[in-house]
């Protein structure tokens, strides 16, 4: 059950940092994954007025070996990973964008081009962490750094659904 205090906090995050900040606040408060946090945001808070662009689902995944030291960087609460053996390959959804403009910004900050599939295995040296922190929380960017340090690789997925429109 969502409290009024939580809603107020999310609304404040929405007003000051946009939808990404609001999603990050919901994740922190409820310990849920990105997609669920987005659903909760859509149900509880007003849509951004400029939401003229079509919906897309752009994702960045991290893939690497599980270790308890990075359990707090994963999508769910640490206890869900308690029985996972060290070294188990783990796929983690770490960043997302839901509009083509957000996707372009995300790609730029990762040092890649949205539609250059040759570069979707992201070179960590090309990431502009400072720029990334303008759209995502400092904590999220730090967690990505910790995953990279633990041997994870990052992969960009421009949209899990087919699209062909010229605006993209």
């Amino acid at each position, binding site marked *: 059950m969502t409290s009024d205090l939580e809603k107020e906090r999310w609304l404040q995050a929405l007003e000051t940092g946009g939808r990404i900040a609001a999603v990050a606040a919901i994740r922190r408060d409820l310990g*849920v*994954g990105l*997609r*669920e946090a987005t659903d909760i945001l859509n149900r509880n808070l007003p849509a951004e007025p400029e939401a003229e662009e079509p919906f897309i689902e752009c*994702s960045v*995944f991290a*893939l690497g070996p*599980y270790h308890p030291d990075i359990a707090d960087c994963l999508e769910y609460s640490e206890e*869900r*990973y308690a*029985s*996972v*053996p060290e070294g*188990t*390959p*783990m*796929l983690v*959804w770490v960043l997302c964008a839901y509009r083509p403009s957000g996707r372009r910004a995300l790609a730029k900050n990762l040092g890649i081009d949205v*539609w*250059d*599939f*040759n*570069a*979707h*295995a992201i070179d960590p040296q090309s990431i502009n962490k400072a720029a990334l922190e303008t759209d995502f929380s400092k904590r999220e960017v730090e967690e990505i750094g910790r995953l990279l340090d633990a041997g994870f690789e990052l*992969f*960009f*997925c*421009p*949209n*899990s*659904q*087919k*699209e*062909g429109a010229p605006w993209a």
Partner: protein
Amino acid sequence: MGLSAEVIAIGGFRGELVPHLSQDPERYRGTRDGAVIVESLFNDYGSRGSRASRELAATLAVQVWDFSTHPLQLGRVDLPALEALVGRREVERFESFAAAGFRFFFRPDG
């Protein structure tokens, strides 16, 4: 809160995979063989809710919340049962990616 699920496939691009990829073929012009790409599978079925997600997990021989089972073991996938859920076309995509050496990860969301 409902559960949804999909499978994420990660592997090296090959020209013969283009008909099975998410985007229009012209998007892949200039993509080199071996470039690592990411594809989503079974999302249409897995987004139908908790029951569908659990059915999908069962055909893939994974436990929804046991992350150690999420890297798919191809030999354990029940292809006929999977096809009954997601249809022939999605299974063909899966088989094409598998033949190209992709790795697959079950991904629950809930």
